[in-house]
């Protein structure tokens, strides 16, 4: 018989339709239909400038939005041939790893909830809230952050962030220990996940699968180790690998990866170079109106050294922090707010970067940059034609080939095995359908 596991379904993480061909309880065939969340990311990116693409990239893999932002920024920087300062690289890595942990927390929490372990879901959400508080402190938003810019990041880390982050990481570790006690030796969880949703290594490679799905079959491919980007070559971390390619191995791989990510964040805090590098300002704070009046009267000599009082929402992006977290390239990076509001050169620079038709214009060409997303290799392929709007932005979604391989994992098992398998696939519809 044909059973429609429809687009709106409690156990489906997002919208997808599975038409199952059943013989009693056994699954004979699965037809996967996607596209219910197609939001035309690639077409929208062709209509806006490069910086305006960042909000669209946030909503691709919305559980780990910073990784998408970083991937897009790195691809455009490759086209431009731009190198960013070390502190910006460390900040990007810290935020990427925090995002990776939130993704794995959500995946395991949702899978456990569907198997009946509701407490695990609540514990994982509690741990995710700690990390959302960290992200909100730095970027201003919990989920759709648009934090990364081409040439750096929007604002520097706040003072004392390292101590607060270490406190929250300790709390997340405690939650992971609690969840481990609840799930790992749990008879029901074990029986439902062991030997279910199996895929072999050769099949996974043939389908083009990467990420925890591939690593659970025994093949240790991680983009951070194979082609290191940012500062991953300076961090010591391991790549957890499973053996049998079933759901339980994927659960273990994700739990181990979370621990590795937390360790990477701690190492980053030890290695990160110091903050404001242009900190030798006279520090004489004057109101912005007074500065403009002085400039109009021609008294511009002292103005370069004065600090303008800017809005609290611009914390971390004032001149003191600006050069530490942004590349020094006037054609790509917005000037510090003191310069924008304070002198005419900064204002003109800001205008030239923001107006349509002007702005960031990479040379004619194309580039592909792979980044390790939470589900696998997230690759951005950008074709530029010299204008300020991209010609073509293609994102290689890591869960697309996994969904194509879903029938292979499921045929031969029973109907109830669909739920844990689908949960461990970690399909994010925003990324799958774009």
């Amino acid at each position, binding site marked *: 018989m044909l059973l429609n596991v429809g687009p709106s379904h409690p156990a489906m993480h997002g919208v997808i339709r599975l038409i199952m061909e059943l013989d009693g309880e056994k699954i004979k065939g699965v037809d996967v239909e996607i596209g219910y969340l197609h939001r035309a990311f690639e077409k929208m990116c062709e209509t806006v400038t490069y910086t305006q693409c960042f909000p669209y990239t946030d909503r691709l893999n919305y559980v780990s939005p910073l990784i998408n932002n970083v991937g897009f920024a790195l691809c455009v920087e490759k086209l431009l041939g731009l190198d960013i300062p070390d502190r910006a690289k460390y900040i990007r890595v810290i935020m990427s790893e925090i995002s990776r942990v939130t993704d794995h927390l959500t995946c395991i929490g949702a899978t456990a909830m569907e198997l009946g372990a509701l407490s695990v879901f609540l514990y994982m*959400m509690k741990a995710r809230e700690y990390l959302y508080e960290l992200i909100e402190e730095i970027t201003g938003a919990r989920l759709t952050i648009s934090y990364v810019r081409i040439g750096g990041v929007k604002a520097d880390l706040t003072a004392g962030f390292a101590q607060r982050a270490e406190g929250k990481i300790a709390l997340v570790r405690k939650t992971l220990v609690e969840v481990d006690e609840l799930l790992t030796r749990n008879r029901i969880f074990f029986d439902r996940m062991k030997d279910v949703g199996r895929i072999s290594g050769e099949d996974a490679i043939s389908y083009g699968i990467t990420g925890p799905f591939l690593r659970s079959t025994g093949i240790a491919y991680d983009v951070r180790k194979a082609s290191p980007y940012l500062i991953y070559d300076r961090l010591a971390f391991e790549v957890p690998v499973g053996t049998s390619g079933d759901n339980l191995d994927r659960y273990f791989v994700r739990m181990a990866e979370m621990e590795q990510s937390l360790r990477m964040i701690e190492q980053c805090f030890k290695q990160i170079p110091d903050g404001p590098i242009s900190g030798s300002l006279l520090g004489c704070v004057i109101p912005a109106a007074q500065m403009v009046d002085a400039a109009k009267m021609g008294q511009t000599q002292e103005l370069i050294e004065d600090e303008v009082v800017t809005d609290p929402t611009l914390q971390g992006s004032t001149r003191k922090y600006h050069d530490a977290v942004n590349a020094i390239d006037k054609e790509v990076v917005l000037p510090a707010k003191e310069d924008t509001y304070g002198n005419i050169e900064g204002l003109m620079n800001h205008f030239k970067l923001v107006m349509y038709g002007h702005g960031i214009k990479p040379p004619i060409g194309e580039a592909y940059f792979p980044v390790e997303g939470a589900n696998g290799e997230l690759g951005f392929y950008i074709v530029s034609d010299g204008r300020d709007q991209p010609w073509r932005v293609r994102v290689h979604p890591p869960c697309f080939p996994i969904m194509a391989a879903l029938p292979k994992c499921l045929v031969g098992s029973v109907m109830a095995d669909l739920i844990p398998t689908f949960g461990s696939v970690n399909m994010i519809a925003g990324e799958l359908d774009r």
Partner: protein
Amino acid sequence: MPGKTKPWIGSNAMSRLSSPSNFFTSKLKDALGWARKFSIFQYPFVTACCGMEYMSTNASHYDQDRFGAGFPRFSPRQSDVLFVVGTISQKMAPVLKTVYDQMCEPKWVVAFGVCTCTGGFYDNYSTVMGIDTVIPVDIYIPGCPPRPENVIDGLIKLQAKIQTGEQSRTLYDPRAKKGRPAEVQDDYTIEQHIKHIGT
């Protein structure tokens, strides 16, 4: 029939007592409204990023359960509030309409997130620009995604609406609005393409 809540004390008290049947039916209606608003069984029609904030609102930090809305019913027949969470694409719209039609009276609809309110910044060929063009909406919670505090605010407003028994029944017709820009042309010629991308 749905109407305004009558105050308990004040000038209307005498008119209540003067007609005993009115008194009993209006008190019954208030009691029903009170019962319904504190036992909301929602159907979370979750599609996209707003689903993450829906999960956060449901979890222990922000806790929807203290408002009585903590137990989602995953069958439209058993639920009374349809939470449409996340962007609805053109492919998904018929499914949404089917789920809405399957719900029993009384039912309310919450448009959660700006993509469901107006379409968000996805003005393209595959997004429904506001679900109120397809089903009638009672509460709009804008935000991309709305913070859990916003969601709780919307939930409290929904409870006020449930108390009065008022339901939205009208769809939004965008063409009825004056001053609306002209429709998109069907033919997109090469000359327009050249003009659009510049030389």
